[in-house]
């Protein structure tokens, strides 16, 4: 339970006060600075000087020096003492009379004036309404029934200011501003003596138990309530704090922030005002008086005086933390916020928050711990350093001293519990991840990132790669051995790469691909390396590893070259020629690279096109030479070859034609002949050798594509001629000829065709051709007639315009002005604007220049 908030220190021992006189008791005390006044029941006032000193053991002790004791001469007990230090006066209540005596010599001042008679009890207003510093306000309960009086006490006189009556007899009073807080016989109440307004607080039987009324702050009072409660009430009659729970026999109460100290028959109890909990209990018999004076809590039995010395706040907080009472420690610290200079408080508060965080961390209360670390702005390395080996060996970090926690390291904390270790590590991962994104990590990014890397690697965490692929500050020297230890070679490669050591990265990856090292992070590491090489700006590296990549798989390996961006490789070693030269060992790769150049990038170079065509051809021939030749593949290969042959105009036709001689690749040969404009040869092959009439027809269309109509016609006639070749008659070719004519009627010159056709063909057979030809001729005729008519009409219109513009004569004289410049004409040359307005030639030219968009509608005609 307890915090040690106070220490009980003896101040004035019995022998200094009454010696062995058993009947003499302490009645009241007053403490003002170092001055302690004690009133006794034999009408004496004792004056001590209380010196604080520290014993050799480091304990605080008081040394009381008796300055004076004086009998007031009334043989009655001294009931109350109050010092008014500004006036150097002591206000004494004895025998129902308040007198004012000198603080130093305890002599009464000016016998008559400074005296109030008929006083049961009084209090001093600690929040005075009068601005005069040399004046003390007193609230006085008169022995006269149901009256409270307000007095002003000056150096040598007292003055009654106000008298208010109360509904019942008051028995205790406290004054704050205009507010009187009164304990009446059956209840407590607040009374504003200025306005007369009153506010009942709660019932209390003052006869049964002695009431306590204690001002604890501005317009707030602490009252003894039924059931041994200490109730807080404001001048408005509201309670803003939960009550504290005293015992039924409470005698007195005092406040020493943030604690409420109460005295009962056997104990001194200490409650916190911040959380209302009991914090400390001190055994104290025969307690008689408990009062606070300017923050000093003084306790008296009937025979001796003690001081309750508060322990330093920091010490209390540390005690609480040592007992793992985090919330209480924080409450206490925050409660003291206003009593400590801001910067000092912040430092202390931060440290407490950090300690609190570590306590909760130790209890695996990560959520709370994180919050406290965050609020306490914990140096994240404090946390990392708990985990063995996580901080880089190069880190300059040393733990804060005195230590924030009691743990040597994580193993110490977990005591061998692996589940605990695992959870702590998970927490650190999440904590570091968050720290990275905030400024918390500033100044120690390397430590944070390296620690995170190690955690990821150890836990086989997928974010390891994200960390390495993004901006990071992982220390290579420290991380590399760790990654190797956990077989994270791919990740290590990434780290090398991030640190500009691409060669090291590649070496490592190659080893993994080759199976020399085991790391299953990426099953497609080979493709990754190829991809990497295709982007790698370091050409030496590319050449170094290209060999390996191509040997592994030409098809994939060639991507090193095909995926490279075009711009940067033309100049240096990465030009296509040197690549092709390099690739010559790898036929497939060469082919793929050439395809890339020719088909994708459309590089217009004879050499490349020829090379590709030859490679295609070789492949086809190679496939054909197999037995049995794979039909599907042959077909595909030939299609590629044919496509290239047809579409490219750059390859060396003769070379290929030479290679094609004596092969069965007739279609390709036909195409090559076509490229050479040897259409008769091509068609001959198609018709006679291949007997592929659709191909022949397609050839004509292909060979005439992007050429004029005439060329096409020539080709079709040529084909027709081949079909109708009288030297090699054949029925199928006749049919093909008829089909050709009927299908492409428009492509032929009908008259010429008719001359060619054999006599015996029926009209019916050629009907589609003939009607198409006729319709075409008719269409052409009518179209030209329409065109002629339109041309005539246009001509007529132009003539009409011309005549119109000629119009009548235009008069120019020396008196007539130009419409544009308004000068007269001096020469006969002029320009006539539409409408017959004569202007100077230079004016017209000027106008034409100024409005370029508005071109002169017609050629201006000169008039002389």
């Amino acid at each position, binding site marked *: *339970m*307890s915090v040690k908030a106070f220490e009980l220190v003896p101040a004035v021992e019995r022998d200094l006060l009454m010696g062995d006189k058993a009947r003499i008791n302490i009645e009241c005390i007053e403490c003002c600075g170092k001055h302690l006044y004690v009133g006794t029941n034999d009408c004496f006032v004792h004056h001590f000087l209380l010196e604080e000193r520290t014993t050799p053991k480091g304990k605080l002790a008081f040394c009381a020096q008796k300055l004076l004791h004086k009998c007031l001469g009334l043989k009655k007990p001294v009931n109350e003492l109050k010092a008014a230090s500004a006036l150097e006066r002591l206000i004494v209540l004895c025998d129902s009379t308040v007198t004012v005596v000198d603080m130093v010599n305890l002599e009464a001042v000016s016998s008559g004036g400074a005296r109030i008679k008929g006083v049961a009890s009084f209090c001093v207003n*600690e*929040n005075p309404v009068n601005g005069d510093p040399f004046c003390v306000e007193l609230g006085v309960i008169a022995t006269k029934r149901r009256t409270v009086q307000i007095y002003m006490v000056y150096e040598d006189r007292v003055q009654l200011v106000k008298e208010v009556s109360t509904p019942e007899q008051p028995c205790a009073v406290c004054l704050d501003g205009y507010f009187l807080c009164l304990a009446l016989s059956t*209840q407590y109440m607040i009374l504003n003596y200025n306005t007369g307004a009153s506010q*009942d*607080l*709660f*019932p*209390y039987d003052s006869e049964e138990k002695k009431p306590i009324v204690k001002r*604890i*702050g*501005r*317009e707030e009072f602490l009252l003894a*309530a*039924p*059931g*041994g*409660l200490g*109730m807080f*009430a*404001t001048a*408005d*009659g*509201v*309670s*803003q*704090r*939960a*009550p*504290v*729970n005293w*015992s039924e026999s409470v005698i007195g109460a005092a406040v020493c*922030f*943030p604690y409420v100290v109460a005295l009962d028959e056997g*104990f001194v*109890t200490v409650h916190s*005002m*911040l*959380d*209302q*909990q*009991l914090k400390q*209990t001190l055994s104290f018999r025969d307690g008689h008086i408990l009062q606070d004076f300017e923050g000093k809590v003084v306790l008296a039995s009937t025979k001796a005086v003690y001081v309750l010395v508060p322990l330093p706040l920091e010490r209390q907080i540390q005690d609480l933390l040592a007992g793992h009472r985090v919330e209480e420690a924080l409450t206490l610290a*925050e*409660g003291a916020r*206003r*009593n400590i200079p801001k910067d000092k408080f912040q430092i202390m508060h931060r440290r407490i928050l950090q300690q609190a965080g570590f306590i909760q961390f130790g209890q695996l209360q990560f959520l709370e711990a994180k919050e406290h670390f965050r609020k306490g702005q914990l140096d994240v390395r404090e946390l990392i350093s708990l985990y063995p080996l996580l901080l880089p060996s190069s880190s300059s970090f040393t733990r804060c001293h005195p230590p924030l926690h009691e743990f040597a390291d994580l193993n110490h904390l977990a005591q061998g519990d692996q589940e605990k270790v695992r959870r702590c590590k998970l927490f650190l991962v999440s904590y570091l991840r968050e720290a990275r994104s905030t400024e918390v990590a500033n100044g120690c990014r390397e430590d944070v990132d390296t620690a995170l890397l190690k955690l990821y690697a150890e836990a086989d965490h997928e974010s390891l790669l994200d960390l390495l692929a993004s901006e990071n500050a992982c220390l290579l020297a420290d991380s590399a051995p760790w990654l190797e230890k956990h077989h994270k070679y791919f990740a290590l490669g990434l780290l090398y790469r991030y640190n500009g050591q691409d060669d090291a990265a590649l070496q490592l990856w190659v080893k993994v691909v080759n199976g020399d090292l085991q790391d299953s992070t990426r099953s497609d590491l080979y493709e990754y390396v190829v991809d990497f090489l295709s982007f790698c700006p370091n050409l030496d590296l590319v050449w170094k590893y290209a060999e390996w990549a191509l040997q592994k798989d030409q098809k994939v390996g060639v991507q090193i070259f095909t995926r490279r961006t075009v711009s940067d490789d033309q100049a240096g070693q990465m030009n296509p020629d040197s690549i092709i030269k390099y690739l010559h060992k790898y036929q497939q790769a060469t082919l793929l690279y050439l395809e890339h150049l020719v088909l994708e990038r459309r590089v217009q170079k004879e050499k490349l096109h020829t090379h590709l065509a030859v490679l295609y051809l070789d492949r086809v021939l190679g496939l054909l030479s197999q037995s049995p030749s794979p039909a599907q593949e042959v077909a595909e290969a030939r299609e590629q070859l044919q496509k290239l042959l047809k579409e490219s105009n750059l390859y060396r036709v003769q070379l290929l034609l030479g290679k094609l001689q004596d092969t069965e690749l007739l279609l390709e040969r036909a195409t090559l002949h076509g490229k050479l404009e040897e259409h008769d040869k091509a068609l001959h092959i198609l018709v006679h050798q291949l007997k592929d009439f659709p191909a022949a027809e397609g050839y004509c269309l292909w060979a005439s594509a992007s050429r004029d109509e005439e060329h096409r016609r020539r080709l079709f006639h040529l084909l027709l001629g081949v079909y109708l070749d009288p030297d090699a008659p054949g029925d199928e070719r006749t049919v093909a000829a008829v089909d050709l004519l009927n299908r492409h009627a428009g492509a032929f010159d009908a008259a010429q065709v008719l001359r060619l056709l054999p006599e015996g063909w029926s009209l019916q057979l050629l009907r589609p051709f003939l009607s198409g030809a006729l319709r075409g001729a008719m269409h052409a005729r009518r179209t030209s007639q329409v065109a002629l008519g339109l041309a005539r009409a246009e001509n007529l219109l132009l003539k009409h315009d011309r005549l119109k513009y000629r119009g009548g004569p235009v008069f120019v004289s020396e008196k007539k002005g130009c419409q544009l410049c308004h000068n007269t004409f001096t020469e006969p040359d002029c320009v006539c604007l539409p409408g017959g307005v004569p202007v100077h030639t230079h004016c017209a030219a000027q106008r034409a220049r100024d409005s370029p968009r508005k071109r002169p509608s017609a050629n201006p005609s000169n008039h002389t």
Partner: protein
Amino acid sequence: MKGKFDIDVVADSTITKRRVQRATMPDYAKMKKPDVKLVILGDMNVGKTSLLHRYTERKFKDTISTVGGAFFLKQWGPYNISIWDTAGREQFHGLGSLYCRGAAAVILTYDVTNWQSLAELEDRFLSLTDTANSDCIFAIVGNKADLTDPRALVEEEGEEEKEVVPQLSSSPTGPPKFRKQVLREDAMAFYSRILRYKLLDEATSLPAESMCFETSAKTGYNVDLLFETLFNMVLPSILKKESQSCSPTVDLEECREVKRTKAGCCT
């Protein structure tokens, strides 16, 4: 140590009306100042502390009789609402009006298995609310609904450790172990009598249907509903108070961005 008693999380605070802090002593207030006050009243053993505990801690645990009172500060949107848990014992009855002073809402709690607990509300506790705000909202809450109402029995009816004074139960059959002594209609009738007592017009006041709750602190039945309904109902009262308290003093502690003050004279 002596007399440990259950106090819910307690934060201290200064008064609801903001005042000039011309401190002669240190200001003990924490940074949070409650904007509005809710008070839970009711006879002993009806479950006031348990209700608050269920709401704040999300669990039900055995509590011992509250001594004096306790309070809890709830952050509701930008506002701080203080909820006072009072002691039901006769001994502390006198403190009730002190707690109720300036309250914006009062939760009158009874035990559905105990007719007397409702009667006590009317006899003893209603008069305590005289010190509450004039526009104070009243909620009538029948706790321990889990004992009588199967709907409130979300949890397994396990150990029976409730400090219920077992009433002579004559319930014939059925799972409920206790006869429901107070029907919702009774509570609603009581609500109407409160309005009459307060001289409020039933037509313009909040309807009884929405102000009578049956809850179970044990299972959590309707507990959130109760508190959150009330929080939302007292918001207008906060706004009203803010608009009234345009004091001439600049409160340097005031850091709330939306400050509703009355417009100056010249606008």
